[in-house]
Every structure is written in C-alpha cells, then in structure tokens.
C-alpha cells in the first residue's frame, strides 16, 4: 500500500496505484437466509481501490456484483468482514453516521435513476445539500454549477418525467456529486439507455474522473464504459475472479454482441 499521504488533489499524471487506497475490503462475506436455505452472495472479497481510479466490475447476474456494491456503499451490512472507506470502518458507524457518510462521501448512481418524481431537476440535485445543511442560496448556486457540468443547465426546471433517460441519468449524476463525494458508485448506469444517450453519460463520468479526480466504481456490461476504465474486476460466485489493468485487456467497442473479454 502506498503511503503517499501528502496527496490531497489527485494528479492525473500519476498512476492510480501511487495515489493511495480509498476503499479497502477485508474478507467481505454476505449470506442471505431464505427460509431453510442460506445463500452465499459474497464468499470473501479482498480488494483495494485507489484514489481517483475508474474501475469497472463485471460478472454475470447473480455473481454478487450488486451485493458487493451495497456493502461498499454502506447500503447494506456484511455478514462478516470489513469495509474501509478512507480508512473508516463502515461497520463501526451508527445509523446517523452512516447517513453522514452516504450524504458526503459516496455518490450513488442507479440503473433506474431513482430521481424524486415530484421535484424539478435542480431540486433533485440540491436534496443531498439540504441534508448536509447547506443554505438554500448556496445549494441553488452549486446545483446550477453541477447541472452545467452535466450539460443540463437550461433544463433545471424540468420534472424527471419531462426528460429523456440520458438527461435523467445525468441529473442523477449531478445529484450524486452534490456534496463532492470522493467515490461514485454506479450500478449499471447505462443499463436502461440506448447508445446515444448512453454516450452522454459516458462523457460525463469520464470528465468527472479525469477533471475532478473522483474515484468511480462501476458495475456494467457496457463496453464503451469498460474501455474508459483504468482497471477491470471480474466477479463470479461471490468471489473476485480476476483483476486486470485495462491496458492488459482488449475491449472491442462499437459492435453489438461483442465478446466480454479477449
């Protein structure tokens, strides 16, 4: 583990591994009790994510991808093992501290966007700021800046229902960035989008990663997203099958039905 603690703003020129660890899991296990049967969703995951890297997680459905995400994001508690975010043990936090963590340290992006239907685009973006105690005026200003960043500044007054999927997902990305989190967790962010609208989301995610140095953990089957990643992690049967730098992997893009790896 690198001990370059002096690093405060990540430098894009540096190799991610040199910037320090932001998320670390130790023997992470999760099992679900379904009546008599116990399902092992995670069978011990040990992984280190570096500050400012873009890592894609791949795996068939039922492989434990989503469970892993929820553990890392503090959305669910592990059966055993530990998750450290910025060296804080998530399992040690109480409900109110967890709310603090979710509000300021992690941004969530869901496949189904999960925007609040009755709020405008801008209101959606400022909700986490309200939870963080930011004043309304400041929240509005910051919210507009974020919308500008994702290219939706002119649509701030629209309700989710009046926007396309891509626009909704970009709103969700702006919302996830509301309190400048260090990590973005994306669960199939382009899963519900077509190529064109998906591309809008790719661009925004890439810019956030390169320009703002946000660490992005992304579960996806979208080859174009994978091609942007620094590292790729394969999960199978609740275990890490393989982790590789993207440069070591050939990803075919632009074809429909292209193979996952090789």
């Amino acid at each position, binding site marked *: 583990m690198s001990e370059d603690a002096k690093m405060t703003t990540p430098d894009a020129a540096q190799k991610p591994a040199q910037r320090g660890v932001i998320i670390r899991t130790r023997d992470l296990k999760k099992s679900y009790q379904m009546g008599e049967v116990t399902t092992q969703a995670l069978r011990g995951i040990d992984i280190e994510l570096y500050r400012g890297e873009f890592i894609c997680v791949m795996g068939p459905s039922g492989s434990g991808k989503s469970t892993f995400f929820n553990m890392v994001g503090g959305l669910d508690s592990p059966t055993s093992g530990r998750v450290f975010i910025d060296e804080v043990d998530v399992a040690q936090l109480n409900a109110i*501290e967890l*709310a603090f963590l979710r509000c300021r340290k992690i941004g969530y992006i869901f496949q189904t966007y999960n925007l609040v239907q009755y709020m405008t685009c801008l209101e959606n973006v400022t909700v986490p700021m309200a939870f963080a105690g930011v004043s309304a005026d400041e929240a509005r200003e910051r919210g507009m800046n974020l919308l500008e960043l994702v290219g939706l500044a002119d649509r701030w007054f629209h309700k989710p229902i009046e926007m396309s999927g891509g626009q909704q997902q970009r709103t969700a990305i702006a919302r996830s960035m509301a309190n400048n989190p260090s990590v973005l967790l994306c669960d199939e962010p382009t899963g519900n989008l077509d190529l064109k609208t998906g591309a809008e989301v790719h661009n925004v995610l890439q810019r956030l990663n390169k320009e703002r140095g946000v660490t992005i953990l992304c579960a996806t089957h979208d080859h174009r997203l994978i091609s942007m990643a620094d590292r790729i992690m394969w999960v199978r049967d609740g275990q890490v099958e393989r982790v590789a730098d993207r440069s070591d992997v050939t990803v075919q893009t632009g074809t429909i039905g292209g193979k996952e790896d090789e």
Partner: protein
Amino acid sequence: MKAVQIQEQTRLPLGKCIELVLSGVKYRLFRASITVAIIALATAFLMTMLSESVTARKVADAIQVRTAPRDRFLFWVARTSAAMTPSQLDAQLKVAEPDSARWREFKGWGKLSDTQLTQLAALATEQLDDYQKFFDELSEGNRRHLVGRVSGTEIFEWLLDEENFDAFTARMAKSDAVLDKPLGDFRQFLTDWKQTQPLRQAICTGHQAAVEAFARQAGGRAPRDVFAVADENLIEILTGAGMEMTTEDLEVVRQQASLSVDAGRIASAFNIPGVKSELAKRRDLAVSEVNLPILFQELDSTGGAEWFVELNATLADDASGLAKLQLSAERVRQVAHSKLGESQLSVVEATVSQDTTSEGMLGFSGRTLWLIAVSFLVCIVGIANAMLMSVTERFREIATMKCLGATDGFIMINFVLESVMQGIAGGVVGTALGFLLGAGRSWAKYGYLAIEQLPMQQILSVAGLSLFVGVGISAMAAVYPAWIAARLAPMEAMRIE
C-alpha cells in the same frame, strides 16, 4: 493516509421538512386526496353516529320537560278517578322517596308505620323487579315447563305452595334457565311478599276510600272538569281525602285541565252539522278528508280561529247549549296550538324513545353503543389501511432518500407530518360532513325540536373526539410502516418493492 472525519448527520429544520412534505403531497395530489377522502369518510361516519346520539338524548330530555305538565295532569286525573291495583302500587313504591308527598299518602291510606312502608318499598325496588324480569325473560317453553300456565304475580302465589316450589326447584336444576340469586333468597322473598300482601291491600283500599271521598266532594263531576275550575279549596278537598297537592301542582293541573276541557268543546263544536263541510271548503278538501287534527291546524292562526268562532255563533243552537263554544278566538287559537304541539311531541317521543334509553354506557342505548363501536372500528381500519398503503408504495423513494443522506429520523418526521396533515384535512372535512349529516338526520327524525335543541356544547366535544380520532389514528397508522421503512437498509427497502 488522510482519514475522513465522520460526524453525526445534520438534522433538518422542521420548516424544511414541511416544505418537502408539501411539495410531495402537491405532486401526489390525487393519491393524497383519496387518502384524505377515506379519512374524511371514516371520521364523518363516527361523527354522524356521535352527534346523532347526543342530539337524540337532548331531544328526549326536552320532550320530557315539555310533556311534564300534561303528565302531571294525567297523573292527578288517574289517581282521583280510580284506585290503583297492587302492581301499580309496586311501580309507584319504586320511585317514592321516603317522607315525600306520595310516601305520606301511602302511609295515611294504609295506616302503616314507616318501617312497614320501608319494607314494602325495599321489596318493590330491590327484589320484585329482578324476579319478575327473570320470569318475563324466560322463553315460553321454559316458563311452561317451570311454572305451568300461571303468569304475572300469580306465579308468586303458585310458588308459595310448598309442593309447587319443590317441583320448581327440581325442574330448575335440569333446565338451562339461570336465576342469579340463590333459591333460598327467592323462597324468603316469596314469604315476605305474601306476608306484606295485606299491607299493600290496605293502601289500595285506603286509596279507594280517598277516590270515593273526592267524588262525593266533586258532586258527580269528572275530575278533569273539577280541576279546570279549581281554586285553593281543591287542595283542602284533596287533603280531606288523604291526598297531597301543592299550589304549584294545582296551577299546572288547572291549566292542563282547562286546555283539555276547551279542546273537548272545540271537538264537540266541530261535530255540529255544517262545520265539516265549511272546513272542507276552506281547506280545499273533500268532506270525508277533514278531521280534528286538520281543524286544529286551521285554528292555529288568527284568521282561522276567528272564522271558527263566527261560524259557531251562526250555527250553534242556543237551545241545545252543548255545542256552544263559549270561547274567544284568542283562546281557540291557543288551545289549537298546544294540541298541535302535543301531537307532534308524541310522534317525536315515540321515535326518540327507540334511540335512547336510560340504560347503557354514557346514556347511550345498547344499539347505539354498538353502532358507535362499529363506526369506530371502520374508522380505524379504513385510516390504517390508507396510511399503510401510502407508505409502503413509497419504499423506493424512502430508500433513495436514505442513499442521499436522509436520517431515519427525517424519514419518520416526513411521514408523520404528512399523515398528520392528511389527518387534519380529512378530520376537519369529515367532522363537518358528519355534523351536517347527523344534524340532517336528526332533523328528519325529530323535526324542528332537533334544530332547536341541538346540543352545541356536546356536539363540539364529540367533534373534538372525532377529529382527535381521525388525526391520531392517521399518525399512528403511518408511524409503524414508516418506522419499518426508515430502519431498513436502503437496499432492502428497494428490494421489497
């Protein structure tokens, strides 16, 4: 490595919470208004039941006050016309206070001591009723089986026979009839009752003598006619016969008697040939359709009364004298008015006595209590269901909010606030609706008396109760699912959906 400083999450001010809730309610206006409508309906149902009940009681009380003078008059007519039977005496003994006017009369008539009368009253109040009720409530078959064909107080006579009582005891043991007092007590009561029978008889005999004494003084006139022209002397006459009448009583009885006499005069004047056809012409009815109530309706106006007096003057035969009205138009109208009121009251009285009894909790009858309990249940189940639905269908929203940093407390406050707002809206609308419905129904049932006697004080307190139930149940019904949702890990909440 720079560790993050983890702190407690900021708590949102209440104003911000209310703002968020309101924007949510505004978006789901249709869904929210259905929830509000359910709460309103349930509250309205409860409110209708409660307000109707309190109105019925108030109306019943008002009727009692209004019919009291007439009841007193009828009471005096009855007791000066004929002696009471022993069972009527028992009924009166139950309400007679020691050393009241009635009490002294009974003592005088039967020439009894206070102790004897007290024993009689105690038997009547504490035991007779219970045993009579037991036999009255037996099924026909059971009674035949237990005591044979005898009924009423004859049963007691029959049971006094040792042999009969033994047979009764044996049959009781086998039957499903339950007498909630020991048979030994019943046996004792029968003996006491038999022993005191002569005392009862003595009072009735004394009463008979008093009635006869009064009749002698009246010189063959009916009590009603005596009362109608009574003065202070009447009290002395009654005292001579062993009856006590106060000057206050006298005044009331005289007024009622004179009303009754004058009404009788009007009725006989109505029977003079020609009057009916005149009235039919005036009311634009067929002759066969006119009757006394219609006449009274006509007379309850200055014009009508004057018409009738003039008509009587032209038609009445001086020689017969009987049908001569001898009343002023003003008096005719007064009598007609009070007669009309009386008949209206008796109709309402019949209705209201079905809705109220002196028994039961809070003065409501068993039937009313049952209806209130049912409406309460409907209210609770309806509101709980509405709130449960509106929370569970929003688990995803709750989960999203938690991902964005909402604390469990915020989720709770959010839902409780929302349900309280809906509860207040539904409660106010429902209470108002229920009040209107209740008042309308009372009005339909009891007429103008219900509106005149509307017990605003009680209505306000039952309105408070319904409102409280509406708001309270809404809040309570929302707290539980919201608490469950708030405590769930966000991902679990999303999975449930």
